[in-house]
C-alpha cells in the first residue's frame, strides 16, 4: 500500500498527468463533473458527480463513421481514432460497479469496438465513500462503498490518501508514479473502511432489499395495477436515464454537415415517446408503459439475462435529480410491498 498526503495531491495529479491524461471530479456552478486535470484544478469534495462516469466509455454523443456521397456512389469512412491510456481518479464504488454492468452489454458478442477501445485504455482509480449520502443505497446491490475496487483503490484517512493496486494495470500505474507516493501500512485505511461501513448501516435506505426482484418475475410485476400510480406524474423528461450510470440505450442518427454525412450515436431513453415508434405504430403509447419498461428492465429483464445482476448500482442520482421525486427506490418499495427489515 502507498500513500500521499492530501496536501500533496496536486503533485500526485501532476505526476500522473506526465504519463497520461487524468480526469477527476471538479466543482462547477451546478455541482461536480469530470474534467481533465490541469495545474490549479482541485479534486471536488462532493460525494459524486452530477452525471455518472459512463461518459468515459459510452459518451453522450459520438461520431461513429462518416460517408462521402457522390452521385449514386457512397464511401463509408472509418473515423475511429486510436485511444491512448488515460486515468480516471475519484470514481465511486457505484460507478465502478456500473462499468461491469455496461461491459455486459457492450463487450458481449458482437463487441462494441468504440466502447472497448476506451475501456481497455482506462486506469480506474476509485475512492471509498467516507461521507455517503442519504440518497445512497449501493449496499442493496451488494456494493461495498468502503472497498470500491477499480484498478487502484483509494481510502482517505488521517489527512492522507491510501492507495492500493487491485489489478495488474493498477500495479503498473502505481509503479509509474512511485516517486510521488510513499510506502504505508494499511492500518489507518482499514480503520476508516470500518467506519464507512458503520455509516452505511445507519443510512436511511440501508434496509432496502432486492429480494423480491430478479429474473423470471415478469409475470409477477408486469400487470401490476401499481404502475398506474407510480407513473402518474412522470413527465417523460428522461433525466433519470441520463444521470443513470447503467442506462445504456442509444440512438443512431445521421447528420448532414454540408460536406458529407456523419453517423453518430447518442444516449436515448426508453422514457421517450418516440423510442419505440416506427412507421406502422408504437408498442408503448402511454407513459405508464414506458415507465414500466425502464424499471422492469433494471429489476427483472437485465438480471434474467445477466446472472441475476441488477441494472442499478444505488448511486442515488435519480433520487436527487428527478423533478417529480419518483425513483427506483419508490418503485421497489411500492412493488415489493412494505419496506422490508
Amino acid at each position, binding site marked *: 500500500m502507498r500513500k500521499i498526503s492530501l496536501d500533496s495531491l496536486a503533485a500526485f495529479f501532476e505526476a500522473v498527468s506526465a504519463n497520461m491524461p487524468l480526469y477527476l471530479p471538479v466543482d462547477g456552478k451546478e455541482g461536480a463533473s469530470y474534467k481533465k486535470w490541469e495545474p490549479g484544478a482541485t479534486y471536488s469534495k462532493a460525494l459524486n458527480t452530477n452525471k455518472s462516469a459512463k461518459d468515459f466509455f459510452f459518451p453522450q454523443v459520438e461520431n*461513429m*463513421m462518416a*460517408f462521402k*456521397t457522390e452521385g*449514386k*456512389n*457512397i*464511401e*463509408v469512412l*472509418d473515423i*475511429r481514432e*486510436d*485511444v491512448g491510456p488515460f486515468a480516471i481518479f475519484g470514481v465511486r464504488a457505484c460507478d465502478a460497479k456500473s462499468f461491469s454492468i455496461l461491459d455486459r*452489454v*457492450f463487450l*458481449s458478442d*458482437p*463487441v*462494441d*469496438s*468504440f466502447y*472497448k*477501445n476506451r475501456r481497455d485504455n482506462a486506469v480506474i482509480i476509485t475512492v471509498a465513500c467516507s461521507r455517503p449520502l442519504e440518497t445512497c443505497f449501493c449496499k442493496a446491490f451488494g456494493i461495498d462503498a468502503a472497498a470500491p475496487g477499480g484498478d487502484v483503490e483509494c481510502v482517505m484517512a488521517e489527512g492522507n490518501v491510501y492507495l492500493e493496486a487491485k489489478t495488474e494495470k493498477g500495479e503498473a500505474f502505481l509503479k509509474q508514479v512511485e516517486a510521488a507516493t510513499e510506502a504505508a501500512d494499511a492500518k489507518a485505511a482499514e480503520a476508516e473502511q470500518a467506519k464507512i461501513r458503520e455509516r452505511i448501516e445507519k443510512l436511511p435506505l440501508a434496509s432496502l432489499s432486492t429480494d423480491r426482484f430478479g*429474473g423470471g418475475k*415478469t409475470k409477477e410485476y*408486469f400487470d401490476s395495477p401499481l404502475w398506474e400510480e407510480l407513473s402518474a406524474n412522470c413527465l417523460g423528461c428522461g433525466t433519470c436515464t441520463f444521470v443513470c450510470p447503467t442506462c*445504456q*440505450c*442509444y*440512438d*443512431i*442518427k*445521421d447528420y*448532414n454537415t454540408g460536406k458529407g*454525412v456523419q*453517423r453518430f*450515436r447518442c444516449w*436515448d431513453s*426508453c422514457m421517450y415517446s418516440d*423510442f*419505440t*415508434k*416506427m*412507421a*406502422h405504430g408504437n*408498442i*408503448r403509447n402511454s407513459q405508464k*408503459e414506458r415507465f414500466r*419498461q425502464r424499471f*422492469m*428492465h433494471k429489476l*427483472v*429483464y437485465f438480471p*434474467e*439475462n445477466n446472472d441475476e445482476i441488477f441494472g442499478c448500482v444505488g448511486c442515488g442520482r435519480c433520487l436527487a435529480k428527478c423533478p417529480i421525486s419518483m425513483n427506483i427506490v419508490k418503485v421497489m418499495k411500492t412493488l415489493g410491498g412494505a419496506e422490508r427489515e
Partner: protein
Amino acid sequence: MNNQEPLIPKVGTITDVRIDTPDVKTFRVLTPDGKKAFDHKPGQCAMLSIPGVGEAMFSITSSPTNTEYMEFSIKKCGCVTEWLHQAEVGQQITIRGPYGKPFPVDTVFKGQDMLFIAGGIGLAPLRSVINYCRHYRDQYGKIDIVYGSRSKDDLVDYKEIIDEWCNDDGINVHLTIDNPQEGWDGHVGFVPNYVKELGFSTDKTAILCGPPIMIKFTLQGLQDLGFEKTQIYTTMELKMKCGVGKCGRCNIGAKYVCKDGPVFRCDEIDELPDEY
C-alpha cells in the same frame, strides 16, 4: 484498436428494382464488386441505410440458396422506405448483417409438412423460407401456401407465385383477396377465415407473417383447427437501431427481437409481456 465494428456497414449497390404492387418494390442488392454482401439463413434480416436519411431493418426476402444476389421486398411506409422507392438502379446504399435467429429450417422443419400463411408484405420474410424449402424439396413434406392481400394488385411476387410455386409438385398455393375485383376468379375473403375454410390437418408446421391483426386472428383460427402453439412460428418486427441487442429499442421482456428473434415459436411469444 479493434478492427471489427458491427455498426459500420458495407456498401451495397441496387442492381435491380422490381415494382411488385403500388407500394411494394423488390430491390436486388450486391456489393460494388458484384458479390453477395454476406450469407444468411431464412428469416434473418439486414440493416439497410441511406446516409443522411437513416438506417432500418428489413427481412431478406431472397433465399440463402440464391448464390448470386440478395433481395429485399420493401413497402413504402416511412422515411427510409420512401427514399428507397425513389432510388434507381445503380444507386449505392449501405448494408450490414445478417441479424437475428432464423427459422429452424435445418432442424425442426426437416421432414415436416409445411403450411405458410402470409398477409400483404408479410410474404417478404416467408419467401426466403418457401424458396429454401423448394430448393431442398426432398427434405420437406407437402407444402401449402395461403397468401392474401387487399386486392390482386397488392399481391407481392405475383409472377413468381404463378409461374413457379403454382407449378411445383407437392405445393398447393391458396390465394385470396379481401374484396371482389374484376379479373379475379380466385378466392375472396380474409386470410384467417380462409385458413379455417381450408381446414388443414394438424400434423403440419405453420409459419405466419402479416399485419398484427391478421396474425392474431389466424393464430386463433389455427388453434380452433386443433393446432398447438408449439407448431406455429412467426416473425416479429419492432423498432431497431443497432441490430445486435445493445441499443435497447426492441427489448420486450427479457428478449431482444433483433437477436433472440425475429423468429419466435408462438408459445415463446406467450412468455413475453403483452406489448406486441
